[in-house]
């Protein structure tokens, strides 16, 4: 098992130092080795588990229950302007 720790970190938007990557690499690999073992189990005829609880989804009626709580919800945002969240420029 060969894992590119830096790629995984990039996908997760986690910045890693080379030392951290060197430490995490073997740990992630041991997880994948374990998954590999699971893969070897014969699951022929076993229904796939969609969810650990054998529950069907409860549904919600289509009625508006939430009002405008913008001020409260934006109070923890680092930067807003005229009700909009302001973030570093993201256009590609």
């Amino acid at each position: 098992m060969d894992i590119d720790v830096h790629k995984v970190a990039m996908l997760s938007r986690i910045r890693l130092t080379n030392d951290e990557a060197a430490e995490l690499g073997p740990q992630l690999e041991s997880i994948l080795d374990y998954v590999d073992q699971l893969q070897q189990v014969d699951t022929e005829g076993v229904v796939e588990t969609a969810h650990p609880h054998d529950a069907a989804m409860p549904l919600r009626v289509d009625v508006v229950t939430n009002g405008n709580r913008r001020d409260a919800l934006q109070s923890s945002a680092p930067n807003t302007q005229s009700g909009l969240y302001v973030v570093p420029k993201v256009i590609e």
Partner: protein
Amino acid sequence: MSWETVIGLEVHVQINSKTKAFCGCSTTFGADPNTQTCPVCLGMPGQLPVLNTEAARKSALTGLAINGQINLESKFDRKNYFYPDLPKGYQITQFPVPIVEFGHLDIPVPDGIKRIGITRIHMEEDAGKSMHEGLDGVSHIDLNRSGVPLMEIVSEPDMRCADEAVAYLKQLHQLVRFLNVSGADMEKGQFRCDANVSVRRFGEPLGTRAELKNLNSFRFIKQAIEYEVARQIELIEDGGEVVQETRLYDSVKGESRSMRSKEEAHDYRYFPEPDLPPLRISQQELDAIRAGMPELPGALRARFETEFGLSSYDADVLTQTRELAVWYESLVAAHPADPKRCANWMANELLGRLKESGLNISSSPVSALRLAGLLDRIADNTISGKIAKDVLDAMMASGDHADAIIESKGLKQVSDSGAIDDMIVKVMADNPQQLEQFRAGKDKLMGFFVGQVMKASKGQANPAMVNQRLNKLLKG
């Protein structure tokens, strides 16, 4: 060497529920930014999604309408990517087991009907909106749209030219509006299309495809696909290779550009959504959804042709939307004697006037009942068809009854043979030369005399009667 184009379409249809997919926030369009959000659609920690019944029901209804298989148990998954308009860092969607699979839509093509396969319909949530224009170094984010329910409708790569792609989209657009599952307003982003386009030499396996994003009008879709096909053929003929990439069509410049970002950006690392158990729909629930299915455009069109004797053109025009069809049927109910006259007046006269005034059938100042009242006056010869057009203009302006306008403007048709004879005698006296020529055998002048008499009567003379009296009097 001839080339074949292969097109598959992915359409995002915004479901017109009152609330978002997984929380009780309103979906009203155009609200002040971020006033329709809550901890669930903002992705705050510890919040749990609960699926909206209407999103599930409308997706299943759409699946039934395309003759798809409805999966009585479907699952939700997380699609992971980072973008500021996606506050959770993942989108809840359906990956391996969507609610609908294996459907199809029949589209009109020049030589008949073509069946386009629909691979799947899955439910997912929309992202928020990012704004960049006029901003320096920052973007602005409005999350009112975050969590609004979508259906993504994915076709098979069954279309072979831009016109077929547009025909498919129009058919789908009409269908979702008939089903009342979406407003499908393209300008509001409620019906958005991505096209996967590739070319191949006839008989060869599929070529590499490019994905065209953000096609937001039928016209641009056609232009963008045609541009892309030409680009790929030229590339290959010049010895190049098409790369799999996402391209953005610029409708102003009429060309597309690559949005190629690093391959990793498309590594979505799907996994099952642990916060949502499987969605189960019972057979009884599905039967109830099926029972609520309205008459679909194709069936309605066929019925209008057989039941009312309409031309396929008129039937098509009057079934473009459910509102039009309902309006036409109430018009026929009020003027049952002549469904074809109803169709002519609605399709040609009323819709034309509405369009000119920037109105539609729902905002028509003339109701079906009032238009029927006007058609009744044509049927009983109170006015001619020509005068009726003027009356309709007046009805559009004032909203009055046809009878009130006919009365107040004195537009009643003149069917009194004595009065018509008087007009004819005067026209004959005023045009001695034409009369002489006519009597010398120039039959074509009959039209001239009819015109003169109609003019003298300000269009109010009964045309049949004018013809009949002229025939008598002109011969002397």
